[in-house]
């Protein structure tokens, strides 16, 4: 009921020589003691406020007691904070450790250093409302880097993937942070909505140009390393797509580094290591990507498209290459436009079909997987050729 327990009252009574205090009396005294304590503390708070402090001191309590015409409690004015100790054997009893001090020790002890005298120093807190950056003033608050949506999380873990960046020019801290975050998202959490926002950021933000070489390098390394990881490859292709979309980036300077990685994703033998991986989709996506690159930069680099088509047709016509590679090549060629399809695909259609046909037949090709792939390739061929033949402009 009262925050001062009955036992405390009994202990206090004992300490001042009243040994026969009845427990009823203690019980009745407890609330009153609490009330008086609160009263004193309230009064001390007034004294504290007028001393322009926000912490209460022993002096304030003394002042409050004096106001009440009560003798102040002496002996607590100076020294460090008082430490209460638990009385042995009692759960709720505490006391202040008050050591006996030998007079001799006190007298013989060397005088302590005189405390420094109060003094006054003067400085400009502000000049015409602006705070000068001098040591006397509080340090100016660092302006937080513009956050890229909510991409940045406060955690600052290091990347597990060790990317040695040949930093020759100074990259700002914010850009480094940005790069670290984007790469981490690409590697780790490409399925999160955060990654989508990152892609948007990559596609729209200005000022990313200094990072482009690092991104290209990153993509190159990761594609060559991570052919087994389907989702990573897809994420990387999306990053490429986003970078291509960004109008503030002059990416054509880095195309020679970028193209091999992209074409790899189109015509690699194996993309991903699981059956469930829908590498067809990745190839389709990459095919479109390649086509868009060729369309956009074809006039700057004359041999860009020819080199791409050459690579693709070589992949297609090589019977030793796997069907998945053929599929990628077909899609890549098809994406480049009906002209390319007519010139390269249709002309080679007959010999290629001869090659493909055995794989499609149940009796010839026992491998279910292979047969499926063959049908897939056949489907792609069919669709693309039909589309081209129906194109009224060309036919």
């Amino acid at each position: 009921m009262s925050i001062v327990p009955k036992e405390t009252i009994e202990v206090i009574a004992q300490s001042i020589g009243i040994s026969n205090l009845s427990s009823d009396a203690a019980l009745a005294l407890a609330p009153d003691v609490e009330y008086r304590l609160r009263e004193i503390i309230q009064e001390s708070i007034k004294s504290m406020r007028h001393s322009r402090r926000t912490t209460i001191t022993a002096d304030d309590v003394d002042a409050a007691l004096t106001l009440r015409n009560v003798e102040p409690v002496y002996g607590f004015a100076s020294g460090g904070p008082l430490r209460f100790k638990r009385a042995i054997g009692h759960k709720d009893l505490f006391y202040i450790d008050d050591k006996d001090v030998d007079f001799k020790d006190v007298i013989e002890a060397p005088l302590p250093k005189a405390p420094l005298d109060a003094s006054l120093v003067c400085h400009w807190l502000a000049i015409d409302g602006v705070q000068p950056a001098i040591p006397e003033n509080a340090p100016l608050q660092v302006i937080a880097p513009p956050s890229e949506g909510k991409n940045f999380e406060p955690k600052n873990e290091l990347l597990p993937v060790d990317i040695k960046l040949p930093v020759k020019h100074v990259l700002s801290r914010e850009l480094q942070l940005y790069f670290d975050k984007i790469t981490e998202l690409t590697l780790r959490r490409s399925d999160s909505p955060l990654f989508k926002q990152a892609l948007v950021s990559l596609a729209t933000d200005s000022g990313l140009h200094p990072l482009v070489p690092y991104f290209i390098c990153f993509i190159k390394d990761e594609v060559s390393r991570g052919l087994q990881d389907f989702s990573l490859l897809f994420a990387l292709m999306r990053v490429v797509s986003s970078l291509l979309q960004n109008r503030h980036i002059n990416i054509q300077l880095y195309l020679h580094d970028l193209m091999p990685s992209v074409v790899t994703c189109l015509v690699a033998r194996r993309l991903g290591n699981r059956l469930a991986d829908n590498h067809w989709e990745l190839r389709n996506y990459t095919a479109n990507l390649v086509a868009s690159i060729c369309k956009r930069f074809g006039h700057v680099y004359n041999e860009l498209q020819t080199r791409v088509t050459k690579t693709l047709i070589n992949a297609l016509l090589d019977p030793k290459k796997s069907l998945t590679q053929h599929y990628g090549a077909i899609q890549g060629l098809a994406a480049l436009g009906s002209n390319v399809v007519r010139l390269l695909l249709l002309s080679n259609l007959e010999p290629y079909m001869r090659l493909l046909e055995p794989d499609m037949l149940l009796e010839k090709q026992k491998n279910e997987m292979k047969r499926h792939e063959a049908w897939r390739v056949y489907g792609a061929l069919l669709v693309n050729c039909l589309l081209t033949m129906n194109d009224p402009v060309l036919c």
Partner: protein
Amino acid sequence: MDEEQVVKFVETYLKKKGFKQAELAFHEEVQKNSNANSIKIHSDPDLSNLILSLSKSGDDPGQYHEEYGKLRTWTFNSLDLYKHELLRVLYPVFIHCYMDLVAKGHIQDARAFFNTFREDHEMLHARDLQKLEGVLSPSHIQLFFRRWNLLILLGRAKSTSRCVRSLISNFLSNYQYSHELLMQHLRKTKSTTVLGIVNERINFQVSPGQPGSISDDAEVVTLIGTSQDAANKINKKEVHWGLLEDTLEDRLEKAGGLQSDTEKPEGETKDGEIDDNKKRLAEGGKQGTSVKKSKKDKPTGGSAKARAETIVVPAAPRVKPELPLPVMPAEVEQSILEDLRNRVQLSSTSLPSVSMYTFINTHNSLNCSSISNDGSLVAGGFSDSSLKVWDMAKLGQQASSSTPQAEIDASVEHIQGPNGSKRSYTLLQGHSGPVYSATFSPLSDFILSSSADTTVRLWSTKLNANLVCYKGHNYPVWDVQFSPFGHYFASASHDRTARIWSMDRIQPLRIMAGHLSDVDCVQWHANCNYIATGSSDKTVRLWDVQSGECVRIFIGHRSMILSLAMSPDGRYMASGDEDGTIMMWDLSSGRCVSPLMGHNSCVWTLAFSCEGSLMASGSADSTVKLWDVTSSTKGTTKTDEGKTGNTTGKLRSLKTLPTKSTPVYSLKFSRRNLLFAAGVLSKNV
């Protein structure tokens, strides 16, 4: 309702009250009239139930809990339209229930009740609740109200706790419909105890019409000593908030406007002080050259300032001083005029420069600081009863050259410390308790200090000696302030009074009594006819110096008032409290113009810039904040003639200047609008 029931009611009632003889007499009476059915009573079943429950309701402590709980849920579920009005009823009912429980001795239940429902009121009334929590026995209630005056003044009623509590009436304005709703609910749910409280002790001011919005009646819940009516009556008194006639600003304006060498004409005669006039004329001759000089730079500074002032000044009506004011020496006046000419015009776009004085090595013993008008002297009051004065001009000298200092030291022995080591300050000793406040006279030739030893002392800065000790207060004197023209000063004390003194008398001239708790701070109005006092009872009062009457009560703060400032045009007053809230008041209407939120700890000091466009506030959160005053007052000065304050304008916070862990103790705008700030470097903030 039949007769038997009635008899039963009366019997139980008499038994409960212990009227034995009356009971016996009643019995006899009943037996006599047993066959005559003469007693006519109402046949309303509701009422009979009510009476029944009334007679039953005795000392059941659970009832309070239950009924309050019911009221609370009902209130929280009520329509939004009426909700905030009904919510206001909860707090007083809560307090009364708690007090009733305590008074009846159900301490345990009281605690339980308190702890269950305290959270509802924690936000608005945290401090009150803390105080109330300690009340644990019937005898405390009486003490409590005598000492703390939590809710309202009960000063004169000391007889019994019952009597004391019956005075606790709370004043709530409620709109008719909300009021009816409340009463209906209470009757329906048979919350007789609460109904009793509401009927007996809560005084509703029921006004017809729609419930108001939440914002415009923030002050209504505040509880004050005198009744709301009385407060309203007080606030209806007229306040002549205008400036004095013929201020220095006017003179400057005239000088700027006329541009003639005979610049001391008409206005002087109003003073009727021929001596002064002569002096000034003589001075005018001497100053001829300087006047010409000033004409040269008029296009750059002077005229622009004059123009700016014409915008501000005409808004303030002129009043005559009610006190005989001291005459200002001519050379001082010249220097002030010079300052005014060179004043920097401040606005929301041109912020002031701030010079910061930081006390170091004070070992937590500095209680207050004060800065002279020109910023050259800084005084600090310490808890070791000493007052120390730093002369910033000398401080600079010491740093540059140490040898010529010896001569000055010889003349002023106070600078010499006891062991020969130099002190950078003048030590003034005389008080016998912590010094809580210090103030410089307008000309910086005197310092007043107030202390816990209940005295105010006057010191001369020229002689470095104590001149007078003013005794009058019975308890520590929290604050002392010189009037804007010097000679008079006001003090505020723990004894709940503020007093007006003049330097030449050791007895106070006026005693302002009326606050319900400590008077914590005091401030003079620009025209010297009024003083404002801020108190621990959470109100600010404005007093007429001549009559000693309270002319305004400003209600709205939620904690102890720590600082006050008056706008230089005399129309507005700002007050800062313990929670960090600053409120701007319109003196003529007595209403709050706008509360300024921003600080998160005690506002120790407030200061208006000299032309009143900016206000600075210094706080324990180690910041100086600059506020735009004109944005809110513009509307009013345009419409003007204004009792109808345009209170829509909100004051903007213009800038926050953080210090390096230095709580700001005092702020002062110099006449040239340079802002001085002083504070103590404290590591552990």
